[in-house]
């Protein structure tokens, strides 16, 4: 039973990583219906942003704090570029978007390989994030706490943006009824762009955060993108709440499976659970029921 608490935390932490990876998707896929396979590469771009920033600002702490907003900007701008050039032509063809963005992800990966070289690069963690803090009898890595906090902050910020700001109102209006929003004077084009910018920007932030945990290489994103999509699918479209619940749930489940079986089997079991779950709730954990869903 000693393992219960640490495993719970491991699951929570895994969930927070999944959430960071999936939060942007919850916007772009969940709210806009765009299947962006290059989402993972936006994360990679964020991670490389952290790398570049650290080359320029050797202090690891400063560079991390600078990287977070910059990663948002880089991811967001890449997303904006993608939206304007390709995705905007394809809103009525969601499945084709998947293939096109898969092509984009191939290109971005190869570009990263050509620019930064194939080997992984390293981003140093700041001193105040190294090591662990004792918490409830466990040694909790500071990086994991930081990412957990970052995920919480991102969710709070995003839900505030959606609830309070005019942009958020426009996004919600557009999501719920594009035509009505249009006739009510909302520029859905501008809203789409902004939504995509924000969603991709969050991917960039996730990428910066991931430099604390794992490798930084051209294929960084591929490891996360399928999982992130599963989070959104399980969470249900249209609401952040679903993504949060799904990410934490899947994280804890996976950590649990991993503890009781093996890491390989855990992945397979998780898939089985997801398919079974979708049998019960095809619309996901939380869903706004609209007529267009049916």
């Amino acid at each position, binding site marked *: 039973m000693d393992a219960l608490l640490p495993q719970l935390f491991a699951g929570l932490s895994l969930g927070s990583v999944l959430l960071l990876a999936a939060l942007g998707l919850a916007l772009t*896929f969940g709210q806009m*219906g765009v*299947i962006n396979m290059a989402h993972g590469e936006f994360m990679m771009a964020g991670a490389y942003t952290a790398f570049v920033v650290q080359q320029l600002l050797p202090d690891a702490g400063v560079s991390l704090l600078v990287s977070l907003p910059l990663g948002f900007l880089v991811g967001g701008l890449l997303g904006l570029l993608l939206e304007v050039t*390709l995705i905007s*032509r*394809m*809103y*009525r*063809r*969601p*499945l*084709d978007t*998947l*293939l*096109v963005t*898969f*092509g*984009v*992800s*191939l*290109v971005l*990966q*190869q570009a990263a*390989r*050509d620019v930064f070289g194939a080997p992984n690069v390293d981003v140093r963690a700041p001193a105040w994030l190294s090591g662990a803090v004792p918490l409830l009898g466990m040694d909790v890595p500071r990086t994991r706490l930081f990412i957990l906090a970052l995920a919480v902050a991102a969710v709070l910020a995003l839900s505030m943006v959606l609830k309070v700001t005019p942009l958020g109102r426009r996004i919600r209006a557009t999501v719920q009824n*594009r035509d009505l929003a249009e006739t009510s004077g909302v520029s859905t084009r501008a809203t789409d762009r902004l939504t995509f910018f924000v969603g991709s920007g969050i991917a960039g932030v996730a990428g910066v955060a991931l430099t604390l945990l794992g490798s930084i290489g051209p294929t960084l994103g591929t490891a996360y993108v*399928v999982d992130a*999509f*599963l989070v959104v*699918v399980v969470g249900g479209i249209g609401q952040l709440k679903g993504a949060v619940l799904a990410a934490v749930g899947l994280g804890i489940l996976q950590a649990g499976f991993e503890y009781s079986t*093996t890491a*390989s*089997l855990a*992945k*397979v079991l998780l*898939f*089985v659970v*997801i*398919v079974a779950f*979708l*049998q019960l709730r*095809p619309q996901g954990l939380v869903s706004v029921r609209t*007529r*267009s869903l*049916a």
Partner: protein
Amino acid sequence: MSAARPGSARTAVARPDWWRREGVRLWGGIALAVVLLVGVAPAVLSDFRLNLLAKFLCLAMVAVGIGLAWGRGGMLVLGQGVFFGLGGYLMAMHMKLSDAGPGGVPDFMLLYGDGVVPGWWEPLRSPVVTVLAILLLPAGLAAVLGLAVFRRRVRGAYFAILSQALAAAFAILLVGQQKVTGGTNGLNGFRSFFGYDLADPVNKRMLYYIAAGVLVVMVVVVRLLMRSRYGELLVAVRDQENRVRFLGYDPAVVKVVAYAVAAAFAAVGGALFAPVAGIISPADVGVVPSIALLVGVAIGGRATLLGPVLGSIAVSWAETSLSEQFPSFWTYFQGALFIGVVAFLPNGLASLGGALRRRRARGSAVPEVGPASDVRPAAGSAGGVPADPPAGAPDVTTDTVDTAGRHA
């Protein structure tokens, strides 16, 4: 509105010679392909190149199935590698068992496992069981999985993501069960194929002929399916699933049939791939190979009959010959193909030919193979693609040009 119009394109005013030409073109095309495959290719290609072509033909079988499920049925099947792999592994297991030494235990099990053949391998000692399993097991799995997700109206993107996750899970499972699946090594080192020595070039050639023959049969089967009432229904489900439901059909069943056929095709492709390539490994079944299979289909024209076949063979060929000289360039090229073709030529290169032909013969003919209205400069809408438009938001820009013009 952009895909090839399925079913009868007969019109009240169609001229018989036009019809005849259309039929001739299609069946003539198939006949030409048969002559090329069976007559010309073996004569001009070296054993190595011919074997390579046989490999591409096996991949093309998967493409034919994808064309049916995706192009016609609107199901973006991102996990065909699973069925390809199932077929390939079933065949490979049979070959390993029949190649096994005195104890009847495949070599890799002696190396990595405990030297005991697991019970579920045993039935595959029989060639008949193996062939039946290849034909039925993947199709059955597809049917069960398909019913499960389609019944719950999981479709579009959700289905695509699930099928992709399935491919990922399957590859991980294969890798993790090294003792019984060979792990990352996969299964290889086959010596015989149903009793025929695989080291013998004559038998390698035989494999090629079998692959070519099977592929032709698959194309004909798909053609017949497309032309049947079922083919019309499948397109109807793709474009207006709810409408079909309110006509009293269960769209899940309609889709499952196409999905299972595609799975069976992929499995047969995999089953032939294993002896042709001499190996089947998890690297052939995961997410990336599964998506790569789509490139050829997209390029050739997903909703056409021969497009997927030609597209996938062309892409395989290009990959083999280009990637060795310019590995980095190839990745860019592959990405660019995806972007360019899917975004700007959603019906593949087949539609280029169709558009040209139509422009030339405006008012006289609509090509049978190839989309009816892929180029719509006037409308300028991106709505004309068979990709599951959201229900309740049908495309209103349906002022398609040519077909109507024929009657003017």
